[in-house]
């Protein structure tokens, strides 16, 4: 407003007087509303009890806001192919440990404890069809504020989040047996004796923490995205579990599983898998071509001096430090996935990750594919028994 226009008492000056009054009234209202809100909070007038629920109109408004927020913020990037057995099995393994307690699962209704939440966790079978892949990704990765839906334990591992989304897409068509096969693998909940159930010796909860659900025990891992632990060095396995438990190594799936383990159980677990004889990975549907294998062999055995890449097998071979994993016989998808995780800047905080991260960053995507294909083709050596 130009001061010169209001200097003398003209029509403009009267208009400005009116504006001033309106602004003052609005300010007064804002202050009053603030004071009112403070009073409501102070006196405890609003009922925060989960049991009290929302008025239907409030409920509808909140859902409206939530759905629009998720859709507006979901990534526009195309989703990876989700009709992928390896991805679905990995996602199922995590769903069983991380999601089923609140959301239930085929054959297991939502826990009465979780059902008492406000809002209560939805039955995902009914709800997943409502969302696009990217929306589900957004919800699984970032969670939903005020709804009790947590964010994924690690925000850098989109590959793991997609695994959960892939499983959610499969969920609506799963019956109890189908779900068990995916989420529990070879771990079977045998009918237990009354005493076992009563004393918790072999409880249903125990099966949730079972490593063999994903990594196998009698057989190998059920997903090619899961590492083969059989016959790996005990020290390496223990270090990996400790770094997951301390959340220094980034994996939402493994942090969830390792968080509750004591040092003693970590050492026992590591000893168990270290003592198992190596098992073969499920082979890929298509064999990699010979040129790729040869490039991978050269990189694994000789490295590449011009790219400052040391030979993988200088460290990752039998007879080397037991802190280093043995890579022969791991699945190509798992190896490539881990190298990409390092390349993306994750997992470099632990003492062991600090060694591998800079080396992985020097590898191109093609080199990663080459070397993963070669190492996967190699037979795992039975070190513990030699």
């Amino acid at each position: 407003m130009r001061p010169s226009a209001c200097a003398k008492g003209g029509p403009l000056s009267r208009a400005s007087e009116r504006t001033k009054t309106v602004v003052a009234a609005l300010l007064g209202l804002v202050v009053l509303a603030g004071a009112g809100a403070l009073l409501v909070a102070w006196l405890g007038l609003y009922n925060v009890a989960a049991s009290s629920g929302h008025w239907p109109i409030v409920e509808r408004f909140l859902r409206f806001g939530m759905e629009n927020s998720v859709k507006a913020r979901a990534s526009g990037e195309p989703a990876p192919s989700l009709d992928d057995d390896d991805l679905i099995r990995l996602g199922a393994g995590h769903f069983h440990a991380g999601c089923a307690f609140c959301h239930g699962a085929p054959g297991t209704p939502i826990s009465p404890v979780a059902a008492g939440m406000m809002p209560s966790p939805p039955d995902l079978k009914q709800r997943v069809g409502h969302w696009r892949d990217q929306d589900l990704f957004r919800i699984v990765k970032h969670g939903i504020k005020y709804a009790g839906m947590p964010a994924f334990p690690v925000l850098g591992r989109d590959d793991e989040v997609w695994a959960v989304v892939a499983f959610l897409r499969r969920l609506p068509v799963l019956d109890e047996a189908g779900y068990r096969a995916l989420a529990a693998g070879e771990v079977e909940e045998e009918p237990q004796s009354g005493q076992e159930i009563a004393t918790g010796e072999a409880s249903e909860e125990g099966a949730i923490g079972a490593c063999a659900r994903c990594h196998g025990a009698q057989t190998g891992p059920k997903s090619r995205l899961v590492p083969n632990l059989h016959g790996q060095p005990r020290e390496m396995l223990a270090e990996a579990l400790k770094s997951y438990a301390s959340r220094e190594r980034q994996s939402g799936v493994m942090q969830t599983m390792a968080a509750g383990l004591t040092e003693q159980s970590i050492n026992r677990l590591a000893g168990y898998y270290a003592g198992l004889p190596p098992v073969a990975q499920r082979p890929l549907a298509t064999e990699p071509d010979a040129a790729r294998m040869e490039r991978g062999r050269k990189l694994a055995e000789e490295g590449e001096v011009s790219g400052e890449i040391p030979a993988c097998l200088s460290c990752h071979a039998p007879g080397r430090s037991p802190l280093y994993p043995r890579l022969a016989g791991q699945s190509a998808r798992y190896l490539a996935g881990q190298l990409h995780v390092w390349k993306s800047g994750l997992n470099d905080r632990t003492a062991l990750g600090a060694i591998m991260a800079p080396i992985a960053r020097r590898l191109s995507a093609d080199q990663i594919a080459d070397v993963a294909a070669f190492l996967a083709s190699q037979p795992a050596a039975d070190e513990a028994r030699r």
Partner: protein
Amino acid sequence: MSVARLTLLVASLPALAGCSEIQSALAPRGPDAERILTLGLVLLVGAIAILLIVLVALVLALYGSDRWRRRLASANAVKLGGLAFPIVTLTILLGYGIWLMREELAAAVRPPALRIEVTGEQWWWRLAYLQPDGSRIAEANEIRIPVGQEVEFALNAADVIHSFWVPSLGGKLDMVPGRTNRLRLTAQREGIYRGQCAEYCGGPHALMALEIVAMPAEAFERWLAAAASPPEPVTEAARAGRDLFHRSGCGACHAIRGTEARGAVGPDLSRLGGRRFLAAASLRLDEDSIGRFIHDGQSLKPGNQMPEFRIFSATELRMLSAYLASLK
């Protein structure tokens, strides 16, 4: 500050550079460096003289008598001072420079006493002593040469442009990926001459230094011949360190002659214990510093290509250090 003190300070600056003779173009210890200094001094004295003449002319043009001002404004003054004088001076200087460099030009046909290949890499120097039989002895970062003998350095670069400069012995020469530049140096006196990568090459460029150790010819020959018989670790700790070195995969990047370690990514460690410095002359070498570099290398030389090996305990670091320090 008074004019006298300022003059004194400025005048003493070159002397300050001469304080540390280990890396100074003002303290030449080889014929190449001597010629560069001579040429530099001629240029400096000449430039001062010319500057004085110009200043005198300027003062005369501003405050001089009318006769002087007329002379300076004449066409002859411009022809003489602006054309003839630079042509004559620069021609003489060019002739003098070529005459001074006749040694270098002749060197191309004279066989050197020793050939050493130096490859600049981020951020260290890969060395190879070329033997008469065609074999190569790998070394890194510390160049030993026989005193009084002409050595030819074949300069390469593995990644980006580096520059090889040991000011006390000679001029600066760039190391360019894909081509070999040749430099001849002779150390006239025994001693240690420090050099520096003189072309910014990224990250820890400032910590990419080297040393040339000029030693008596017989001692040099003995040292070079000893490369054929690598030492065996004698102490308990050194033997444990050797086993740990191989088990931990250090040989993926580093080579130690006579062992299974044949990595060519990083510096050759066959005679690490005999060097004065670690990490391209950036860290004084002793058993303590070897362990520290293995464990905390990224703090000591930030950005260097070797990952930190924080997996080693203090005892393991001592064992590794004992082994590496025993390699002489």
